[in-house]
């Protein structure tokens, strides 16, 4: 196996300078055999832009796309560059055979692959915040594990902040640093992941943790009833009608209490303890 530097030199020789990013995107992938990476990198030569295309792209980036000659020059370059960026992103997200995948329609892809494509779309413009809305709930556990692994790696590689929305607390335990628990449109508790799982404060959070089925539990203890009708929300704390510790004052309570600096809870039980 060639060393990284040797490979890099080889890439230069093959005229691949200018797309180092893409080379490293392939290099950093963990899911494929090393030898396959080499072939993929060598294949990149096909995507290299010609001299005129590069000029066209440069001028287009300066906002001269309205001039007919330049737009003609740039258009092909833009398409080619678009494909290149797409391939770069997709391959860094662990999609095999990117060359054929970029030309496929969504229905030709499996669930896990589609989810990777959607993540690629979200990452395409180097965002500061990425919102992942239930990214794994439609997937099987083995595919879910692949996607969670991918998201964990992305966190290391990018500077973006991730907002991971999920109904599955176990999934959140795997990926998140901090968790906010929402109920009927209100935030019930915010804290670091250890705080939420090891010392939950709000009765709703406690109930959520109690109803995760495991082998050790004999009975689960769900709260009675279901979430309130959002058209007619109950006054005060929305969880009060189902809460085992509810008092009369709960109906007026609507405040957030910082128990410690980074652990905030919205429950009357902690009013005097701050």
């Amino acid at each position, binding site marked *: 196996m060639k060393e990284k530097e040797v490979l890099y030199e080889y890439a230069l020789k093959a005229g691949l300078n200018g797309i180092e990013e893409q080379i490293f995107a392939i290099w950093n992938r963990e899911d494929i055999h090393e030898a396959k990476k080499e072939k993929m990198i060598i294949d990149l030569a096909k995507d290299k832009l010609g001299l005129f295309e590069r000029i066209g792209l440069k001028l287009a980036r300066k906002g001269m796309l309205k001039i007919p000659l330049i737009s003609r020059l740039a258009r092909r370059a833009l398409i080619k560059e678009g494909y290149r960026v797409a391939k770069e992103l997709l391959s860094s997200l662990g999609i095999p055979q990117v060359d054929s995948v970029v030309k496929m329609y969504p229905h030709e892809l499996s669930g896990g692959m589609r989810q990777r494509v959607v993540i690629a779309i979200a990452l395409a413009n180097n965002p500061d915040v990425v919102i992942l809305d239930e990214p794994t709930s439609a997937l099987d*556990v*083995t595919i879910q594990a692949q996607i969670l692994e991918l998201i964990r790696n992305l966190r290391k590689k990018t500077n973006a902040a991730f907002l991971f929305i999920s109904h*599955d*607390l176990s999934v959140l335990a*795997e990926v998140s640093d901090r968790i906010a628990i929402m109920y009927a449109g209100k935030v019930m508790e915010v804290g670091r992941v250890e705080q939420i799982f090891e010392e939950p404060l709000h009765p709703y959070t406690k109930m959520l943790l109690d109803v995760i089925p495991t*082998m050790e539990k004999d009975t689960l203890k769900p709260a009675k009833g*279901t979430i309130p009708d959002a058209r007619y929300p109950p006054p005060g704390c929305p969880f009060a009608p189902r809460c085992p510790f509810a008092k009369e004052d709960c109906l007026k309570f609507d405040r957030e209490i910082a128990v410690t600096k980074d652990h905030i809870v919205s429950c009357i039980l902690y009013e005097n303890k701050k």
Partner: protein
Amino acid sequence: MIAAFGIRKYFNVKQSMLSNLMLKAVDGVDLKIRKGEIFGLVGESGSGKTTLGRILVGLLEPTEGDVLFDVDEDVTSRYENALLKGDKEELEALSKKYSIFKKRGNNRKILRRKMNIVFQDPYSSLDPRMRIIDIVKEPMIATDYLKGEAAEKRVLDLLEEVGLGKSFAQRYPHELSGGQRQRVAIARALATEPEFVVLDEPTSALDVSVQAQILNLLKKLKQERELTMLLITHNIAVVSYMADRVGVMYAGKLMEVGDKIQVLKNPKHPYTVSLISAVPQPKPRSIRQRIVLKGEPPNLIFLPRGCIFHPRCPFAFEECGWSTDEIVDDLSYLISSKYYESFGESVSIRTKDENTIIIENAKAELISEIVEKEKANLKSLTAIKKITQEVNYVEIKIHDFITPELYKLDDGRKVACLLFRAEEKNA
């Protein structure tokens, strides 16, 4: 007790003049569910769990195989012996007496009373134009179990029992929430006092707290009525909470069957191991070995030969069923890209027959050297048995493969993996 033997269900996917492809949803499953137990069936989507469940209650007729209902140990062992010997008369006789697909007329109605199913999606399994009372009453009327006022009274009792209250009887399904609908579906399934109930993903469309309510209800019902249940789910947490015994399905086959604690705490089959390691745990920052499987479940029309799991298996070895196509793919990649310098353009590679690969314009020594080197990375190369030099080509023979069956281990569980073939012989 219900026993299924050699169940296969193939669906036609394409019918033209030339091709008639079969989608193998369930491919040779033997299953026994004991009286009064909850049997959990886990697997990824598309692994054939639901199809198997529907076959067990007689909603689908299998392409091959038989389901015997209400049989004891004696009958199943007689049936098994007859299967082994190929004793057709005995098989006919037993199947005529016990098979759920051979019952006709009144017998079928009586059978229908004894088994029922709760469907996956409570939003589409209840008729929107029927009142709850009619929905729950329907199975009693259809099977002549109860009629008229007696049936209505029973509906009210059932609704009370599943925690809904009598006032729900006159409502329509759209007025109910997901959890309430699922309770109605459970009440409907229990209407005719069945002995065997199939629960097809009873909670996957529900919220966690509602899920807990339903699971508790099911556990309570099981204890009160000694119901036998088949719980079909993809959620391993639910199975670990509910089931007594667990079966793991993959691409239409059972991979591992055994006691819940054995299978989920100490899985043996490589697929079960990776499946359970992939389940997220509600313990942040916990350190554990996770095996993230590569790839996706196989295409059910063209199943891999041998063990169906071998293309994704981290422990695969030479007899697992590697085909020449898989080896050619890997070899041609090695020859045309990785070791391009040593081979050049003129090398061509093709399959001759099922067990032979031919490489033209290459040297046997070089190839065997490369194969030795790459074996650890590319599992398919382990299947290469012999590399011989002929006059102007190299011939590669590959190992024969063995299709794994369910091997019984010491602790009573069954595993369909060649790694445990030897253990069965010893036991």
